[in-house]
């Protein structure tokens, strides 16, 4: 289980997280929604130790990430897959080599590595693309390779950073289906996005990050029915100067 407890993070004078607390339940897809620059991606980077919190606890399987030394952190990272916003594929390597890199680090034998590469590419419907370079792939394909790279490691958790941003609706739907499929395989997902259609599709629970704290957390149905004006405005995508739509009367 991943647990954030009163996490604070600032960059200079700019406070990004001002006491975030959130439980990411095992076997579920938890979605963090929030405006651009609200600290969603920072939250993911804190969980894998790519950034250091100013205060608070970040527990992964009971271990407080900021307290871990390098070896312990590497051990924690071995159970976490990370899908970057722009895929972050190694552009000097082919698709297969990108996936292979993490598997080699785990000391797997060559036969297992080949099997995992083939399986993970099949999962993201990219079989046969092993020898292509990232520059030869579309944005959607690159993101799917990013997911394949994460899935191949058979992690307990996958963190998705804006997985559908910049994709056309059909490719976004494919990404949503992949996130649901990995959840069905038993992998816990933590997804940050401001794509509400995607959030409602893949999220078992949705948390709204606003002004450095979790404003509301609940099921997709809870969030759809929220009366919180800030959350309501965000999920409706309504600018500040537009009044909310009048609610229909029960009659």
């Amino acid at each position: 289980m991943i647990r954030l407890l009163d996490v604070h993070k600032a960059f200079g004078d700019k406070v990004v997280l001002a006491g975030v607390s959130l439980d990411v339940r095992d076997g579920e897809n938890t979605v963090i929604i929030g405006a651009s620059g609200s600290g969603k991606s920072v939250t993911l980077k804190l969980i894998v130790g790519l950034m250091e919190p100013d205060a608070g606890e970040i527990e992964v399987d009971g271990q407080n990430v900021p307290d871990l030394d390098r070896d312990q952190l590497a051990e924690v990272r071995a159970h976490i897959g990370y899908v970057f916003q722009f895929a972050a594929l190694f552009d000097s390597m082919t698709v297969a080599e990108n996936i292979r890199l993490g598997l080699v680090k785990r000391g797997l034998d060559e036969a297992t590595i080949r099997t995992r590469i083939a399986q993970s590419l099949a999962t993201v419907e990219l079989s046969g693309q092993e020898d292509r370079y990232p520059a030869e792939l579309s944005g959607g394909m690159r993101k799917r390779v990013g997911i394949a790279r994460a899935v191949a490691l058979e992690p307990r958790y996958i963190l998705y950073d804006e997985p559908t941003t910049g994709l056309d609706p059909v490719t976004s739907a494919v990404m949503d289906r992949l996130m649901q499929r990995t959840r069905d395989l038993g992998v816990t997902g933590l997804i940050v996005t401001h794509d509400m259609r995607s959030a409602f599709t893949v999220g078992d629970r949705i948390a709204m990050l606003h002004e450095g704290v979790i404003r509301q957390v609940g099921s997709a149905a809870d969030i759809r029915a929220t009366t919180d004006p800030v959350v309501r405005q965000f999920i409706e995508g309504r600018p500040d100067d537009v009044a909310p739509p009048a609610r229909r009367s029960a009659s």
Partner: protein
Amino acid sequence: MANGYYTFPSVPLPVPYVLRHPGTFIQRLGRWTTDAARALGDVATWRPLLLGHMVRLGVDSVPIAVFIAIFTGIVLALLSSYIFTGAVPLYFVGALVGKTVMMELGPVLTGMALAGRVGANIAAELGTMRVTEQVDALETLAYDKFAYLVVPRVLAATLMFPVVTSFAMAVGVVSGWVTAINLLELSTPEFFKGLRLFYQFKDIWFGLVKSASFGAAVAFMGCLEGLNSRGGAEGVGRSTTRAVVLGCQAILALDAFWALVLL
């Protein structure tokens, strides 16, 4: 924090930074040393990459080093002839070409050329990896970025700069000899008489030790600046420029250092 989130110091270093923040500098120096020692111990990560970097940073640099050495030898032969004619026996041309190429111009000019080629290459590559989150991706795959990115490059440059420089030394002397026998009134025996006149084995290893230290400095500056890149293409361009400038500065400083220590 002990888990490896790491902020490189802003360069240029070292004197102004040391004076402004002595405590922080000592702390960071300690972390660099610890990180470097730990990364060196992660042999399984860097060893498979070392040969590829030796080829890319070293072997591929031989043509530019040879090109520079050819013209250095020609100019040295002509210049020494111009200086010595009428004052010193002309076979001293061989002595000047040999000493200068082996001890100074071979290592330094080759180092400068490689600071441009190798330093810029490393800084641009790692800088692009940094701003496109490839370095972060590497870490999430449980790799130590120092062991994977820094150690093989620094080791490869340290090992290959002397090899490239030795080619440059040989080509520089040969080019000086060819110039002397064709353009000056000097025979082969006279040229080699001068070459042997003041030759000591130390001349060669002095040049090679220097070039090894140049390689380490150039590669380290490239890694430091590359991993410190921020802000997209412009930031990578800035880091690349700084890596080359700092590499050249380091070469000149080390050149003076070795002259003080070894001569």
